[in-house]
């Protein structure tokens, strides 16, 4: 076997083309562009919603404190750092300018609080709750999906597939409602009111058993809800992927080679069947940050989702933009992560990525 003289067939290329050919660099540039496009879109979208923060507050004042419109408007305008008369374009360039300096701005309605601080207050709860749920759902899905594929067309497979299809077909908030109504209200297994918030407010945050227990207790129902809402998808995805892997020649040959069932299931079937799922998982990580507005509202779980909902009702433009920006970045970067991860796991991609 002798090496053949390599002769490139491509024409000489310019400097710009060279940059474009660099895979990593290209991905980064594409990602940054995506983020910019999305935040611009969001910026105008939030302002297209009916009403602005001042009007919402004015209405609130008129209704609750019986002020005249004039009085209410003056008070609102003096409290908020927001000038409704500034043109959108002015606002936009101001916002982008701030962003480039790494500043998300201050909340419009809660004067003096930085958006970034607010986000950091709510984000960990969502990451904890949804992240754990995603992981759980993923692991369970892989397990049951693989079992179903192994016993394809038997009663086990039918049972798992039917349950997965039902779980997948019903949205998570319906599961949440059903849990509250059936387990909480009718069976009275727990008191829904006790489980509001992210932990028992009478406890001091810290590494105490009582506090950690309370955190888990409060997160349990939302996690259960998320898992029920998503596990069906993972089961079916894994089942499909495993089924096609089981038909591959190398699995048959592995059997013919006399490998043990355990080794075949893990290194030959499992590893190959889960490849596409890991990419999906990475993409889903992006959505973890956003949480789920409805489920968090339902369980009064103080995460980023319910915070986003609140800022929308208040038309708190800067806060909304801040949260949505976080979500965008998370989605875009988890996509990049997915690519990267895939090329780590699959040697076939690894090579072509290098060249």
């Amino acid at each position: 076997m002798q090496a053949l003289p390599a002769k490139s067939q491509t024409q000489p290329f310019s400097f710009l083309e060279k940059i474009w050919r660099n895979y990593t660099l290209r991905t980064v540039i594409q990602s940054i562009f995506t983020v910019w496009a999305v935040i611009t879109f969001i910026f105008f979208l939030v302002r297209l919603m009916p009403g602005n923060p001042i009007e919402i507050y004015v209405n609130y004042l008129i209704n609750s404190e019986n002020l005249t419109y004039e009085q209410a408007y003056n008070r609102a305008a003096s409290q908020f750092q927001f000038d409704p008369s500034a043109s959108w374009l002015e606002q936009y360039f101001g916002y982008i300018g701030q962003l480039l300096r790494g500043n998300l701005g201050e909340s419009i309605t809660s004067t003096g609080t930085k958006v970034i601080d607010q986000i950091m207050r709510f984000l960990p709860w969502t990451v904890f709750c949804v992240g754990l749920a995603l992981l759980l759902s993923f692991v369970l899905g892989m397990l049951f999906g693989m079992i179903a594929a192994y016993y394809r067309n038997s009663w086990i497979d039918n049972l798992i597939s039917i349950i997965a299809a039902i779980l997948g077909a019903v949205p998570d908030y319906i599961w949440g409602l059903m849990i509250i109504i059936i387990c909480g209200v009718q069976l009275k297994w727990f008191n829904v009111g006790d489980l509001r918030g992210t932990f028992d407010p009478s406890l001091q945050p810290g590494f105490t058993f009582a506090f950690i227990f309370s955190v888990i207790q409060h997160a349990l129902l939302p996690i259960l809800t998320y898992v029920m809402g998503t596990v069906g998808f993972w089961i079916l995805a894994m089942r499909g992927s495993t089924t096609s892997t089981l038909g591959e020649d190398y699995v048959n040959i592995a059997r013919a080679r006399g490998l043990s069932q355990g080794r075949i299931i893990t290194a030959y079937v499992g590893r190959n069947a889960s490849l596409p799922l890991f990419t999906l998982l990475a993409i889903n990580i992006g959505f973890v940050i956003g949480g789920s507005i409805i489920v968090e509202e339902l369980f009064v779980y103080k995460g980023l989702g319910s915070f986003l909902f609140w800022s929308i009702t208040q038309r708190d433009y800067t806060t909304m933009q801040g949260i949505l920006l976080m979500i965008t970045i998370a989605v875009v970067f988890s996509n990049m992560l997915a690519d990267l991860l895939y090329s780590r796991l699959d040697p076939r991609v690894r090579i072509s990525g290098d060249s």
Partner: protein
Amino acid sequence: MEEPILEFKKISRSFKKGRTVIPVLQDIDLQVQPLEYLCLVGESGCGKTTSGKILTGLLRPSSGQLFFEGRDVSTLKGADYTHYRRSVQIIHQDPYASLNPTHTIYNSMSFPLFRHKLVKTREQARARVAELLEVVGLTPVRDVIDKYPHQLSGGQRQRVSIARALTTQPKVIVADESVSMVDVSIRISILNMLMAMRETLGVTFVFITHDLALAKYFAWKGRIAVMYLGRIVEIGPTPEITLSPEHPYTKSLLSAIPEPDPDKTRTKEQIRLRSEDIPRLTELPAGCSFHPRCPWFVPGLCDKSVPSLEPFAASELRLACTPLSQGKGLNLFETRNLA
């Protein structure tokens, strides 16, 4: 000599894959004479199907011209172009993929009849389809005409694809590996049928295959063009190509093919290549692309310039080999590290 019905003039074709350009065909010159038997043979990926697609107008060449009945196809317009497309048909490599599984045989076959306005009514269409199925030996027709492709055997399906290619009354049919997927026992009957169609219907066949023995049977009275990595390396009358080829690649190919005769195959002279790896199209070696494998490699000659297809000595062969066309003959290249 008659005017060729189809002619390739310096045709090249490349595909772009991302940033790399894959040169699939390079500088092909080829004439298809009316009613001749012409075979394109070569190993997988050498560009046979691509040539066939260019002949039938399914692909455009990247450079060079295709002539149909003496006229440049790229200049044909309207009725002339339709005439060309109707006159040159292809039977695709894969009989499974080329028939729509949700259409009955009648549906699949009547569609081109209506589209080319060759029939007006359903009765006419049915009669014509039945007639064509009879031509390809699918009798009794009523057993086949309303079936779906999966209800037919591989051989029957292949006959249907042939019948479908006949719907537009073509002058040339490009048969791409038309019998590779059917069984040995029925292969010959399909080939014999194709050969008979040439007589009765006046169709010229361009037969594409990787099986030299089949090519020899089909085109005994015609010509074989041997392709390697996107070029024709040798072309000539079938008996000469199969019994006394000159080009090193054709020689190697022939010596590598086992014979269905135990004594002959055991005593056949073997040519050992210098390397068993086929170069990639994107990393073609300089000069003659066969030189890294060629047992008769001449350093400093074969790896310098690309040989062009030239008439060889007194034979009717045309071949592309620098040492041969310079009259140097072939001398085995000493392989030093054979161990």
